[in-house]
């Protein structure tokens, strides 16, 4: 039964390959071929979910060994990355749930996306995402999970940029991907540290020998994975990306940010439970971040004016609660919370577009009347009883985006700008431009003087001549001093040493000013820290 697990992520991958290649080479295109695409995507994900359910059933009957290895993916020295899967426990339950949700959303999209431009592209991405997500929850090692993790993030990029001719959508997609990339870097760091300290990247080994780690090492690994989880599950300070991700078509919002992908972070924490239990500091961080995100999500969600935004902040808040549960050690509860939330939120997102049709037709009128009635508004304010600043902060989403821009994006851009200038105007000048080889005579006057016979450039001075050792030495010293005097003191001051000095001072001043800018200070502190390690 264990071997079935290979097919679960492989089937949607095959579908993605078929749709992608077919669309790229023009075999599948246009409205007439929509049914082909829909069939490929729909059947494969249905098969996957059937397989996952079979695996789950077999697991409940006790027919699984819990682990299945296919072969080696990459070997280098002692780094041995296998293709292996976990075929039991929480992973399979989650895979079954996710695959069923994915199948439902795929079938929902068949009609929802009908006649949309990019129909085939949508199903290509959705299939790829299904594959990545199932790999993520089933993979038996950190690298496999990371592959799913990153490909899922990439699919999220593609779907946010679904309407790629709209600049806002693409800008948001880029921002989301780069934000997620920070989490990905933390994930790689965590995996690398586990390899360095535990000599393995298999989850089972990492968890089994986690007891041998010193608390410091356990905290290090746990914090790395926690940051990765924060980024993926949109916890503070990464939360704003989730609101930007609402640009995609509704089924994709449902499956990425409602039901499946945002839960990957919580899944990762639950998977790494043994390590976290050895790292109380990391647990505390997870709990605090979760609590803060929960509060943040609920406060900001209260003032949202469109349904998708308010749902997404609710999601963020619920995820915060799950992190809080993990941080406090209620792992079982967090697992159940995850599953229940995935189902409910997926349903809410799918029905969000038809909300207008479902509610009674007079709803909007009545609500508008209610809001516009002054007495009612007054009462609302009293019931809520919140200070005005919280209301403003909530509307502005606590300025998180602006703070990130100010603290991270702008300095990096500024640094890039300065370095680019430095490269073009200083490094290139010093290293690069071929200079004319001939020393040209600078002025006509100089030439005339030379023709007259004034030997201005003649350095050898026949005035001082000596004999014997001391004499020669003195002569030599005199020549050097004369040369120095002639070159630097007389000519220097006579020409424009003062100007040079002034210019030098100006440059030094400018340099100091730019060095004292916050971005450079932070950079120097950072470099010092790196060196100190």
């Amino acid at each position, binding site marked *: 039964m264990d071997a079935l697990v290979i097919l679960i992520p492989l089937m949607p991958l095959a579908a993605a390959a078929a749709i992608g290649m077919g669309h790229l080479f023009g075999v599948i295109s246009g409205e007439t071929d929509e049914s082909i695409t829909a069939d490929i995507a729909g059947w494969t994900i249905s098969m996957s979910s059937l397989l996952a359910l079979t695996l789950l059933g077999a697991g409940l009957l006790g027919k699984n060994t819990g682990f299945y290895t296919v072969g080696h993916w990459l070997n*280098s*020295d002692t780094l041995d990355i296998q293709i292996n899967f976990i075929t039991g426990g929480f992973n399979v339950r989650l895979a079954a749930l996710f695959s069923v949700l994915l199948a439902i959303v795929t079938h929902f999209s068949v009609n929802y996306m009908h006649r949309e431009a990019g129909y085939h592209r949508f199903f290509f991405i959705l299939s790829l995402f299904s594959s990545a997500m199932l790999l993520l929850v089933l993979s038996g090692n950190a690298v496999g999970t990371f592959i799913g993790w990153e490909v899922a993030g990439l699919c999220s990029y593609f779907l946010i940029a679904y309407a*790629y001719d709209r600049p806002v959508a693409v800008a948001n997609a880029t921002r989301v991907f*780069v934000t997620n990339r920070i989490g990905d870097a933390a994930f*790689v760091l965590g995996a690398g540290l586990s*390899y360095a300290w535990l000599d393995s990247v298999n989850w089972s080994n990492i968890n089994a020998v986690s007891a041998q780690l010193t608390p410091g090492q356990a905290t290090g690994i746990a914090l790395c994975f926690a940051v990765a989880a924060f980024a993926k599950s949109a916890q503070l300070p990464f939360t704003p990306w989730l609101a930007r991700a609402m640009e995609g078509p509704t089924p994709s919002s449902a499956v990425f940010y409602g039901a499946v992908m945002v839960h990957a972070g919580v899944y990762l924490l639950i998977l790494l439970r043994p390590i976290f239990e050895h790292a109380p500091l990391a647990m505390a961080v997870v709990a605090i971040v979760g609590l803060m995100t929960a509060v943040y999500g609920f406060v900001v969600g209260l003032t949202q004016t469109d349904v998708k935004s308010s749902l997404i902040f609710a999601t963020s808040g619920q995820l915060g609660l799950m992190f809080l549960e993990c941080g406090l050690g209620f792992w079982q509860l967090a697992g159940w919370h995850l599953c229940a939330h995935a189902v409910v939120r997926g349903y809410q997102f799918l029905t969000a577009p038809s909300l207008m049709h479902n509610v009674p037709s007079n709803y909007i009128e009545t609500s508008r009347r209610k809001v516009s009635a002054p007495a009612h508004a007054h009462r609302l304010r009293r019931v809520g009883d919140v200070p005005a600043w919280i209301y403003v902060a909530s509307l502005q989403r606590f300025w998180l985006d602006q703070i990130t821009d100010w603290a991270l994006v702008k300095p990096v*851009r500024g640094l890039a700008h300065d370095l*680019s200038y430095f490269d073009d105007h200083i490094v290139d000048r010093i290293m690069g431009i*071929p200079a004319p080889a001939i020393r040209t005579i600078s002025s006509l006057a100089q030439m005339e003087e030379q023709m007259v016979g004034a030997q201005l450039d003649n350095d050898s001075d026949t005035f001082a001549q000596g004999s014997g050792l001391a004499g020669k030495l003195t002569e030599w010293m005199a020549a050097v001093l004369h040369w120095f005097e002639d070159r630097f003191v007389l000519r220097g001051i006579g020409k424009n040493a003062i100007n040079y000095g002034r210019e030098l001072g100006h440059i030094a001043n400018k340099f100091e000013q730019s060095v004292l800018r916050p971005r450079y200070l932070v950079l120097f502190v950072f470099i010092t820290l790196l060196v100190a390690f």
Partner: protein
Amino acid sequence: MSNASFPVLSLVILLPLLGAIAVAVTRNVRLAKNIALLFATLELIATGVVVQLFNANPGNNFQLVERYPWMPSLNIEYLLGVDGISVLFLPMSALLTLMAIIASWNSVQYLTRFHFALLLVLEGITIGVFLALDMALFFLFWELTLPPIFFLIGLWGIGSGRRSAAIKYTLFMLFGGVPLLFATLILAANHATVTGGSIPQDMAFSLPVLLETPLPDNLQALVFLLLLLGFAVKAPLVPFHTWLPTVAMEGPAQLTAVLTGLKLGAFGIIRFAMPLAPSAAVEYSWVLGILGAITLVYSALIALQQTNLRRLLAYASISHVGLVIVGIASLNMQGIQGAIFQLLNFTMVAGSLMLVAGFIQHRLGSTEVIHLGGLAKVMPRLTCFYFLFALASIGVPGTSGFPAELLLIVSTMLAHPSISIAALIGAILSAAYMLSFTRRAFFGPVTQIGIKQMQDLRPRELTLLCVSALLILGFGFFPNSVLKINKATAEAWLSRLMDQPVLVSKAKQG
């Protein structure tokens, strides 16, 4: 080390040169182009045969060795051979040249035959660089790459400053050549001193001999730094990198693809600089690591600021060289294998990206972001391939960039943890500069009228990019296929550096 029955390596070097002569003497331009294509294809097959003949098992150091005396009075030989480090570079450079020839099929309008002949000459010489095991022969091939590149940039460049770009490139490379020559001479003379012979007769230039010759401590650092300086110019490492953006802007796309694709400098560091001065290499590996890290972050930050696709790719390529250097400096199996993997990977990724930039340039006359925008709508196929290559360059799983980058990052984590932070920052920045350029150039609404009439990839170009896309995906899914070829050689390379008697005694003292 036995002479092979059939001189297949000489054939691999001579075949493109013969092709170049054939192209040059053919009167008919169409026929000449077809001859060039034929010879490039034959060369690809021949290099494939070399890979087949290569035995990846441990115990075989240099294989298919060919040895003929060349300048007997100086002990300079014509000595060729492959090992696990160099063998895969042969088919990759043959493939890249073939792609360059096909990509420039119609875009070269004057002196067409000369152009294709020069591309073939460059291919032959480059393969000579990979194969040469004699320092003097290597130096010859190394410097011989200059004339074809000089003419290729100067004659068929697309920028107005192509002539000065050609001069700039040549001057930089000549500057890099001097320390290499000095290092070679020091090594050769040292052999004579160690063996107790006289200077001109008992000098040795052959790499296998020099590897066995102990180098005194006072010369180690000097030789290492000279070799490093020489290769750093070609690699390129900051601050010797400024020729690459210039050449990328002024040179023809097919040549820039070859230049950014084949990282001869990094190969030289692996092949010569590290093993020839082993104790200095170990001692100064941190210098190399810091140089690499600076190059990595510095050029990634500059790439963030670029508005031209070709300049962006040039800086991205410099940044990736930085990562490779960091990997080499970490002195472990993951590092060296990842470095070789990444170099192979870049023949495809950087080369193909440059070719795509060339396609855009050829259609639109510019790769400046202000002239682009909304390309995805007009040219969906080109955008798809561009995106795949860009993802490979970022190192997204599924493409060949991922296993290479993973190995390199893991290796730095084991060796220099603080540099690995720089590598991770580089990974984040690479996503930022690639995607933000893509956003402005390929997505968004179509604003220029010229773009609306642009043609998508033609079948010739589509086939071309399909081949490299398949390779990129193939390496990404099955990285072991590459790693197992260079495993034995990489182990031998590493043990030569790490198991030195001098170091052991030093460690005992310490």
